[in-house]
């Protein structure tokens, strides 16, 4: 519990110290162009929007797909999902983003689609595994009480699998923050812009502000997801 309070405070503290440090610097014209409130807010907004929309889409697509994969109860489908999941995990995010940009176009929608594609498999796999881990006896007891398969799914299996599903979504969310940083390479905006521009133009303050903000967003989103996880999880668990 202390980490729940200490970590966000530490993050806010670090960000505050960083801005204090920047305010003591005399910025040249290149730095002034990026280190001002409206630019920072725009980039942060782009970053958060990309992350949240992609994670939302992943939740909408991957969880039903996982449920469907579970309900067909076929060994081939399961093996396929696991194999695809392993290959997906082995695929570098930067490769997915850049390949899609080459075969299609650069920009926000490409970044969005590659983020969704990248996070889809882990969430699908977690949903499937979570549902499968439900104790067989529990399922049978539910059927014995007269529940229909649909009721068993909604009232027994999904609640019991929810910690696993939520953990998958949380990982996807944190991952999206990282991949959204890479989105700058294909002109999709976000805080990655600052990191890349800072490196190119050798402006250390720009790199630091971009990198620290992106790291702060990642840590805070992870914490927020942890809180939501605790709230959404069924009480009995």
């Amino acid at each position: 519990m202390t980490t729940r309070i200490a970590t966000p405070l530490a993050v806010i503290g670090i960000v505050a110290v960083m801005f204090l440090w920047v305010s003591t610097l005399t910025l040249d014209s290149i730095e002034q162009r990026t280190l001002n409130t409206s630019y920072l807010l725009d980039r942060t907004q782009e970053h958060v929007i990309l992350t949240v929309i992609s994670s939302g889409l992943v939740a909408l697509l991957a969880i039903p797909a996982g449920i469907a994969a579970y309900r067909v109860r076929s060994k081939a489908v399961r093996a396929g999902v696991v194999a695809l999941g392993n290959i997906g995990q082995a695929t570098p995010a930067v490769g997915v983003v850049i390949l899609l940009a080459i075969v299609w176009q650069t920009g926000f929608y490409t970044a969005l689609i590659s983020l969704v594609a990248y996070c889809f498999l882990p969430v699908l796999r977690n949903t499937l595994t979570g549902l499968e881990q439900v104790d067989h006896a529990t399922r049978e007891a539910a059927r014995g009480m007269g529940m229909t398969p649909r009721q068993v799914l909604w009232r027994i299996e999904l609640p019991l699998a929810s910690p696993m599903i939520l953990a998958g979504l949380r990982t996807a969310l944190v991952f999206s923050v990282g991949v959204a940083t890479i989105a700058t390479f294909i002109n999709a905006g976000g805080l990655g812009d600052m990191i890349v521009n800072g490196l190119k133009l050798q402006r250390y303050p720009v790199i630091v502000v971009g990198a620290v903000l992106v790291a702060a967003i990642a840590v805070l989103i992870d914490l927020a997801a942890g809180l939501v996880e605790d709230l959404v999880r069924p009480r009995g668990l």
Partner: protein
Amino acid sequence: MTGTLDEFLARRWEDLVTLTLQHLAVVALSLALATVLGVLIGLLVWDRNVPRTAALTAAGIAITIPSLALLALLSPILGLGWAPTVVSLVFYSLLPIVRNTVVGLREVPAHVIESARGMGMTPAKTLLSIQLPLAWPVIVTGIRVAAQLTVGIAAIAAYVAGPGLGFYIFKGLSSLGSVNALNFALTGTLCVVLLALLIDGAFVLIARYSTSRGLRV
């Protein structure tokens, strides 16, 4: 047509092999360093509540930091190339390795530790010659997770001139619109996938042959 994949591979396969080996080398080096460091941290904190929670929390937060951000922060200090790449790969490998070391050491049943103590072993001796070998399979699993993670991150490290296949992926991006753009990005990405799968497979063998003989299944 000069842009076919066949021709591309025929002309550049040597290049591709070199990059793949570089990629493997940087991952292997980082994993070796991270294993030494991570197991050491695990050995130091596993039985002390406060340091253990602190270490695991810190590592858990560290792993959420986007890799491009870390690489960008490191490069003004460490320059370009191998140094920032290795440091960041070690950084991201620590969480799975430390966590699994702690879990593995704590999972050793109390009566086993008691027997060792009863035979006259000191706590340090018990830790190193009883608990560590028993925990090793769990630790190897942690290293395996770290390997999957670092193969992917090493691809991004090409942006700060790190070694490996990321070079081809970024070359694909920078030659966007030319005939070979897709070939560069595609071969780079596919080789990373292949390498990751091969390394993952290799860990089955590594786990088997680095585990103490009596514990092999």
